[in-house]
């Protein structure tokens, strides 16, 4: 965990309201685990006050580059779009526990299911899995054709299915519609990130163990303020704890470990 003023290398709108931000700095070298996130201070000072959690989407260790992909939601992300190459962005990270890529062996198959801005962290995961010679299958869900992003990048790494709610591209429907069509032995593990209802549906439909990544409003980002807790489905037998902190115990959890 480092705090660093990273430098904007490039900023680009890759789909309506979806921006790709490339940052360079020493701490990129620390960002080794997909599914971890960084806590971004959009602006020095108090406007906005809090940092914004954004997932690590890609890391280029050699070039000391970190890529984030974010959707413009409110004040903070809006302000972030105004950053230009050369500007500084203060980043605190890497934070949390990410997706374990190492649980899969060579030639096993992972299915990655992502919706909206749940997609970015899956990209860095897919790259690492492919590096480990794991087969990667990806299902990406969007509202409509125009919203689609990262399709090319995922396709380069494995079979990639696009779903859109209005059917303007790929399968019409939700990611779970595509996910449910997979036969029982098609995958050994699933990894998913996206809106809550999607995570719930994926967890229900899954035929294998898997990992899910959660979101919650955060304060500190490192487990000190208890802003971001979620309930364990079964209290921890060792510590007796009934909850987990999404920022430090998560954001990635074993499917079934916590209540979504």
């Amino acid at each position, binding site marked *: 965990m480092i705090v660093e003023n990273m430098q904007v290398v490039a900023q680009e709108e890759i789909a309506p309201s979806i921006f790709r931000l490339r940052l360079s700095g020493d701490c990129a070298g620390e960002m080794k685990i997909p599914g971890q996130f960084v806590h971004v201070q959009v602006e020095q000072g108090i406007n906005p006050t809090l940092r914004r959690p954004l997932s690590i989407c890609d890391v280029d260790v050699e070039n000391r580059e970190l890529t984030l992909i974010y959707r413009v939601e409110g004040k903070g992300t809006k302000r972030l779009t105004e950053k230009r190459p050369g500007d500084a962005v203060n980043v605190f990270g890497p934070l949390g526990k990410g997706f374990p890529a190492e649980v899969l062996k060579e030639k096993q198959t992972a299915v990655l299911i992502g919706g909206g801005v749940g997609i970015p962290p899956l990209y860095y995961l897919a790259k690492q899995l492919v590096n480990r010679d794991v087969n990667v299958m990806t299902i990406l869900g969007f509202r409509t054709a125009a919203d689609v992003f990262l399709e090319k990048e995922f396709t380069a790494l494995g079979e990639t299915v696009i779903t859109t709610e209005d059917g303007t591209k790929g399968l019409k429907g939700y990611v779970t519609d595509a996910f449910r069509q997979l036969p029982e032995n098609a995958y050994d593990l699933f990894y998913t990130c996206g809106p809550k209802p999607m995570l719930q549906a994926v967890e229900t439909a899954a035929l294998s163990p898997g990992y899910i990544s959660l979101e*919650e409003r955060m304060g500190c980002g490192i487990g*000190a303020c*208890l*802003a971001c807790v979620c309930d364990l489905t079964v209290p921890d037998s060792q510590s007796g704890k009934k909850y987990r902190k999404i920022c430090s115990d998560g954001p990635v959890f074993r499917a079934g470990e916590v209540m979504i």
Partner: protein
Amino acid sequence: MNRLQVNLPGLSMKNPVMPASGCFGFGQEYAKLYDLNRLGAICVKAVTIEERRGNPTPRVAETPGGMLNAIGLQNPGLQHVLAHELPWLEQYDVPIIVNIAGNEPEDYREVAKAVSQVKNVSAIELNISCPNVKEGGIAFGTHPDTAARLTELVKAVSQVPVYVKLSPNVTDIVAIAKAVEQAGADGLSMINTLLGMRIDVKSSLPVLANRTGGLSGAAIKPVAVRMIYEVRQHVDIPIIGMGGIFEVDDILELMMAGASAVAVGTANFIDPFACPKLIDQLEARMDELGIATLSDIIGRSVSICSQTR
């Protein structure tokens, strides 16, 4: 001579800066970032007899220049804190202040008694100002008599000095400060959060699941300064000041208003290194302003103004 040294009942602090209760857990997370021995003291999260689950999420919301929180005193409970958190802190040579809370006066008494016997606990902070729980918390902090009675009860069993943490959500904070001083409080902590709310205009619903929450951060600093200044005029026990400290001048401002030490809350979330950074900046700024030792400026505004009144 250490120019940053300040001394309060039970607290010999090598610098006046401690993290504020609830913003630093029990220290373990920030210990990964820096050596906690750099701090003047550590104030830990509120402890209650039983484990508390706290409120549903979302528990925080951003506001202009500040934030709302409605954690709801989530904590692992007295026994767990005694068995794990406080022993873990023994590795540090820093005064520890334990913030305590409860539903009933009896709860406070029990926690105070137990906690104050722990050898590395230097003081108790009596939380009568949490705005985010239905019972206890702020209910004890809005009436001088109730506050005084609780203070007496806790003082009767505590082996260490007791700081009463006051709520700013009151008409007359001086009356409450005087009452708890008379009841034997060794010091005051002020201020806790202002009760606030945010509504998401898309859903028409409160952003916080608990609906209301406690406002902290830079936005509330002027209220903290005013209250500390007012109380300093009428009360003799020392004050731990807090509320919106983000910069080194904010520390000086609260101390000039009357605080003998300060606590940093929300700023830790924006800059996880806030506490050690502020401590590091103190001396240079004191030099610029011609301040010899920090203890010189405690309540300086109050004394200057009372001369020119």
